[in-house]
Each structure stands twice: as structure tokens, then as C-alpha cells.
């Protein structure tokens, strides 16, 4: 900021007739921007670009067969600082381990991203979705069906 940009009001307070110059200066700034392209983004019609590292809603990833990659190891739940994740495992027919229940309480979540760092199977990741609203607090407890389709639900 240039020194001339500073309008020192207090110094000139009470001096008669000295307000004209500052007003003109202000108007000059306004008029100078009036014909420029606006910087305001018309949210929600218009969205900003999220950075590559943005951490938004959780998503449970699926493998090429469309099955959950998650093996319910519980590392994300263990590392979660706000204890937002609840997992219960089950054994499927082949003896492999899958989540019976996978819940993320998005209201407790602080979006630190530790869960995706801890995941050994890249099964949970944070999307860039930052806008999610519901009428009830309970609806923010996302279960497997929501987490599997996080992108579809909240982007549409």
C-alpha cells in the first residue's frame, strides 16, 4: 500500500472544507473499479475451484468389481481425533473381512484427513465436496450406502 493511499481522517478532523478532497478520492477509487470486471463469484450459481489438497466429505471407494475396498481394519476409527468413525466388521462367505457397519459422523468430523492417511487399502478418501445440508442432525451420520455414493448425492 502506498503512503498516499492512506486517508488520515483524524488529522483533518474539524478542519472546515477539507472533506471534499477525501470524498473525491474515494469516488475516484469507486469509479476506477466500476468499469472493471467484477471479482465477486456468484455462489451458489458459481463455484470456486478447490485446491488439490482440499478435504471435504468422506467417500468409501470401491474396487473394479464394485465392492467396497474397505476391510474394516479400524485404523481410521483408531486414528480419528474426534471419534467420528464407527466400524463393525463381518466375515463374508470367503472368510474375508468387510464392514458390517461403517459410519462417519460428519458433524463430529474435523476434516483432518487422518483417516485417508491411515487407510491401508485406500478405501476411504476425502472428496472436495464442502457443501452438505440436511434437516436433521441424525442425517449427518453417513452410513455405507451414503458414503459409497457421496459424490453422486451431493454433487447432483
Amino acid at each position, binding site marked *: 500500500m502506498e503512503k498516499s493511499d492512506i486517508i488520515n481522517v483524524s488529522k483533518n478532523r474539524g478542519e472546515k472544507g477539507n472533506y471534499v478532497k477525501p470524498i473525491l478520492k474515494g469516488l475516484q477509487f469507486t469509479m476506477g473499479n466500476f468499469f472493471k470486471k467484477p471479482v465477486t463469484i456468484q455462489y451458489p450459481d458459481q463455484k470456486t475451484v478447490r485446491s488439490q489438497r482440499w478435504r471435504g466429505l468422506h467417500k468409501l471407494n470401491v474396487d473394479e468389481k464394485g465392492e467396497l475396498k474397505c*476391510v*474394516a*481394519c479400524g485404523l481410521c476409527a*483408531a486414528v480419528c481425533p474426534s471419534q467420528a468413525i*464407527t466400524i463393525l*466388521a463381518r466375515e463374508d462367505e470367503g472368510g474375508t*473381512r468387510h464392514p*458390517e*457397519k461403517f*459410519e462417519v459422523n460428519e458433524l463430529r468430523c474435523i476434516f483432518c484427513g487422518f483417516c485417508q492417511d491411515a487407510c491401508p487399502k485406500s478405501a476411504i478418501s476425502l472428496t472436495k465436496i464442502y457443501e452438505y445440508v440436511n434437516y436433521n442432525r441424525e442425517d449427518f451420520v453417513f452410513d455405507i450406502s451414503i458414503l459409497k455414493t457421496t459424490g453422486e448425492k451431493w454433487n447432483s
Partner: protein
Amino acid sequence: MPRLIIDEREIEVPEGTKVIDAAEMLGIVIPRFCYHEALGSVGACRMCAVKFIQGPFKGVQMSCMIEAQDGMVVSTTDQEAVEFRKRVIELLMKNHPLDCPVCDEGGQCLLQDETISGGHAMRRFPGPKRTYRDQYLGPFIKHEMNRCIHCYRCSRFYQEFAGYRDLGPMQIGDRLYFGRFSDGCLESPFSGNLVDICPTGVYTDKTARFKLRRWDLQRAPGLCNQCSLGCNTVANAHYRGVMRMEARFNRDVNGYFLCDAGRFGFSYANGDPGLWRRPLFPKIAGEVAGAADALSAARKALDDIAAKNGPGAVAVVGSQRNSLETQSMMNLVCETRGWLGPVFFFDPAMRLKTLSAVHELDGEIAVSMKQIENADFILVVGADPLNEAPMSAMAIRQAARKKAPVVTIDPRPVSLPCDSQHFAVLPKDIESYLGALILKAMGKDAASLGSESENFRAYLGSQLENFNPPESLDQCARLLAASSKPVIICGTDVTMETTPAFAADCVRLLNLCEKQAGLFNLLPGAGSFGAGLLSRTEVPTFADLVEYIENGRVRGLVFAESDPFHCYPDRARLESALSKLDFFLALDYFPSETARRASVFYPASTIFETGATFLNQEGRAQFASPVHCGGEPIRPGEHPPRVYSGLVPGGDHLPAWKALASIAGMEETCPDIAPEKFVPPSIPGFEALGYPVDGQRPALAKSGFKTQWGLNTFDKSQAPLTFELLMVEWIFGTSEFSAWSDSLAPAVLPPLMSISAKDAVRLGLADKDKVSVELAGGELEIVVSVSDRTAESVLIVPRHNGLEWQKSHDFRVFVSSEKIRKI
């Protein structure tokens, strides 16, 4: 005592200590896989390498294979040793799958710890990992052979330590496989220890499979209350359910291990309303009621009965499941209120046996399980260790491994996981055999042993005058005479009333012959020792109480953790007696028949929810810490409620003593009543120990020789072809814990009646024949198992939960041969 220096710290250790143990005494834990204190060292894993700098050994050596010697200087952190261990880990990880996230061992895995602490992270070997086919190993153990690192701990435990042959190593080199010859249940009742002993996840707990992660568990030092041994456990709880049990090391009691009944028999404590039925809500006349209402209704009803018919019309009944706190409170309540009781025993003979077992055991002759392991002669009289108290069979095996002869005298076909000489004799002849054995072992030159022993000898001599023992008994007597630390293990289940006291005197007699003999009793339940200490002779048994109810003397009953429908042999009589009562209250954690019929039911807490003290069969007081608060467990698929409230659904349960105090109005007379106020005064020798006690034995009074023995020698009164029906315990399927623990159900075998081969010929029966035995209460249908090791003239029937043995109508039953019919 060699002195050596480990990591620049000096330590003096006993002769024969391995360097790995010497380091542990200094608090330095050298990584290991194959070494285990109980199993010894084999040097298979090469993980415990350390650098020997000075002394008789030089260079990198295995610390588990080298005994500490004077002048050794050892470095565990030497670069060469660290590098060596790092390479070992890398090689082990060559084949180990990276399935830690799905492995139940994850979080408590030795291999996981060592890999991370060794710094191995990147795999250099590009080739494939070797894989195996897993086996089905029964309902308790899950096999995942790919994870094996070939440390041999499992086969060393299973075959050498526990004495079973059906699991072991097969093939060689990279194909080395630990398993069974083919799929099938593991035969050993100690198979659960494979879970604890495996350093990785080859054997995992099937009952807890995928239910939990180690770091989520609430853990507390607990006790096993399934039999009288009082083995130490770690209870693991999660989401208000007990998930798993592990063995807790106690050198004097169970060592490192635990039997399967204790390890997997915990699920009675979990009441999943959808699947099965731990009663967690108070009930008045079968209807769910509030906690305060149920307590006050019970108090009012009992007060009314006491006011109308006198305090003696109310009786308090306990069982062998009661903790010392509950027993002491029952005692206090009966003393202050004048109620009848506490009644701990159902069978009058069992009361006599337990009382004499408890009172005849003094500090000089009592031995712990650790001392059994070091005995050089073991005599098992009237006991079936593997079925009554499995861990004691393990202790006997350890003694047998050290070449101690084992002799069993019992009507049952007692099998032990070691070689033993078995004498199949009738219960009434057990004392004769024992007496003859002791008398022969003492020899003729023991005249100067004091008058008491002279009396005893003279008595034995006169009683055994016409007794012609088999040849093999002489041989056993010679072995006993040569021993210096013999142990007599005496049971209480099938023996005669006098046998426990007789066995104690035999031990004293052996001690006079300059031996260090010991006595180890097996009692019917976890609370038996306490019940024996607190029982008063004027108090009736439950069998007497039934008569009192029938003649109207007793009008109200309190059952504290007691289920007569399980223990009393005459179901019809019990039903009619209970229906005659004005009121009866049940305090229990089992959904028993008694609880269902009770006028008022109040849920009692289990050992997992409130701390409890138990005196084990050698009189050792041990405290089990509570592990969780209890209440309705959260079923799979449920999150704990997100409502913040102090009330737990199904959390009304109280320890039986607390509910009892409230019902008896003790809270008004002595407010804030706590176990430390009423437990120590009730038990002799407890004041000095304080409360809670852990691991100590209260000073038991010295009892000395008895003067009267009732030796039941050559009682010929039993008519030929009359059989005594002996009710016995099995490891799985006979106890109440087994009845209500789903986790044990797959291991329960169908009931079998054991008879001797000679009797089978006389009755025209063959093995696996189905017979019908006509009893007072109806016909008992059961499959026959013919054994050479069963005594003649007995029918051995388990108190199986799937068998209506309550048709027997009496505690001691004789059956004539025409009442046994093949069907």
C-alpha cells in the same frame, strides 16, 4: 550365582538362567519368537541374537540358548547384533502376508512389534510368498497358516507341554506346516492357549473373530470362576459385552495358561436380547419392573413372612458360584435378621466333603499348582482332574514330564494328558486303596513316628487286614516310598464323605516319614472354599430345606446366584415345594428356571461387572477387578446411543451382595456398607490381609490328625449286579456356566454313560448301544460307552445339560441290573 554385564549393567542371576531371562530381569526385553519361559528354548527363530563381547562365548549368539555365566559382557544394542536381527525379520517377512489390517492378532502381534522396532519397511525380495491351505480346527481356533513364521511354539506347547498329539509340524523346509493330519476339532481342552502363545496370527480366537480390534478393548485383570482353581485371566470387554478372555500369568496358580472352558466360557455375561437371554431387567411376577420397586417389593414380602411366621421362615440359599462378598453378606444378613441359612450346599454329602476338605487343609500341607509341577509322585484319589479342574491336569502333566509317577484311584475312566497307573475302584474302596498304598510306602521301620501315626497305622492295619490289593499297588507303593515330594490330589465329587479328611491325614503321615507331602483338593465350584469356611453345622442343606418347605416351616426363600433346577436331583419335588412357598426371590445373572419362576427377580452382576473375591481350592484369596459397567450390549450394527445419559439400558444389575443388603434392610442399619467392612470379619485369618486381597492365603488353622476315620472297607452290602449311579462333571456341558455360554455349545459332546467292559458283557451291552435306565423319576435314555478303565458296578453319567439326570431323585442312587434295558 553368575554375575554378568548386560548393556553396561551388572546383574547376578541364579544358576542356569538363560541370558535372555537375565536381560529381562534388568528390564531389557530381547526380541524373541520361539523362546517362551514355559516352553524353554530351541533356538529356532534366531531373533534373540545379541553380541557377546567378553566371557566364554564371543560374537553374535542366541541369548535364549546360552546360560548366564560369570564374566560375560553382553550387548543387545551392538551394531552387529542389531543388523543381524534386522535381517532375520526381513527373512521372516519374506513370506508373511501383509494382512495386519484384517488379522485379529494385529495390535498384539509380536511379529508386528519386532518388524516395526527392527525398522524393516521395504521388501527387497521380488518373488512370490509361499501359501498354504488352512484347516478347520474346531469351534474355538481359526487357522491361518500363511502367517506362520515357523517358531514351533504351537507344537511345543501342544505336544510337549499339554500332551496332545493331533497338532504338530509336517513336511520340511519352506513347506513346513503346522496343523492336523486332516481337518477336525482339536482334541486338547487347552487349545485356546495357541492363541496366546502364537507370536503371530496363525491361531486366532474364533469366538472373537473380527469382532474387535485390540486397541478398542477395555481390559482388566480377572479370574476364572468356572472351577475351583481360580485361574487368573484378563477379561476383554468392548461395547458393553465381554468379548474375549486371555490367560494372565500367575506363577503359583495357572502359570501362563488357561483351559478352554475358562477361556471361551464367558458369553453368559453378554445378554443380546435378539439372540439370547441374559436377564437384565428386574421382574415382579414375571413382569418387568423398576429396580427400586422390585427391591422394595421383595423387602416387604420377606418382612411380612418374617413378621407372621418368625424370622426362621425365611431362608437364604446360595451356591458354589457365590463370591466371597456375597457369601459374607449372606452370613451377615442371616445373623442380623435371624433368617435361616446361608445354605450353600444342595447335597448333604457334598457339604461334609467340602467342609472337611476345607478344614483339614492347613498351611503346612496345602500345595499350589506350581508345587504340583515340581512333585515327584502324584496320587489322584477320587478326582478326574481333566474334567473337574482342567488346569490341574496340565500341572500333573508337567510333573509327569519330570518323570513323576502318576497314580489315579477312581471309579471313572480317568484320563490324563500323561502316563498314569489307574486303579478303577468303587468310591467306597478309594480309602482302602489309598490307605494300603500309604501303609506299604511307609514300610515297617517307621515305628518311631509318634503316637498319632501309630494309631493311624494300627487303624489302617486292622481295617486292611483282609484287603488283598493288586500287585501293581505294591509297585506304586515302592515309587511312593522313593519319592520326597509326593502330592495327593483329592476330589470331592464322587468320593465318600470321609475321604478328603482321610487324604489329609495320609499326607500328614507321609510328612512324618520325612517327606514333603502336599494335599491339593478339588472342590465343586469357584466359591466352594468360601462356602466351606462360612458354613455352620446347624444350617441345613437344600435337601433339608425342601423338607422344611413341605412341612410349612419355611415360607420365603432368597436364591442368591443359585439355581436348584440345575443342582437338585428331584425336579418334580422341587417344583411342588417352590409352589408351596409364599414368596421367593431370585438374584441371578443366568436366565435360569428359578429366575423365571421367581416371585421377584433381580438381576445380579457377573464377575466382569463388579469386583469379586474368590478363595480357590487351596485357600488363596484372589480379587477379580471389574472390566466394564455391564448393561445391554450393543449388538453388531449399533452405535452406542448418542444421547448423553448416565443410565445404561439394562444397567440395573447389582452385585448379589448389594441387592441382598438392600432387600434385608441392611442399608438402614449400616449405611454405605462396603465389602471391606463385612468380608474380613466373617473369614478367620482375613483381618490381617485387608480388602481387596490378591494372591494371599489367609492363615488357616492347623488341624492335625483326626482321631476318627470311617474307612468303608469291604462293604459287601451292595448286592451283585446292583449299580451305583455316579453323577460326574465334564469339562464342557455339565456346569451352569456351560449351560448359558453359547460360545461353549459347539464343544459339548452328547452325553455318554460309562460302564466297565465286564459289566457290559454281563448286561449284554456293546459300545454305543442306547440304553434306558429306569430311575425313580422316569426313564433316562443314554448312549453307553464301554471302557476298561471304569470300575465295576458303577454307571457313570454326566450331569449333562442335555440330559434329564434330575430324574434320579436322590444324590446317591443305586440301580439294579433289570432296570437297565437296551433300546
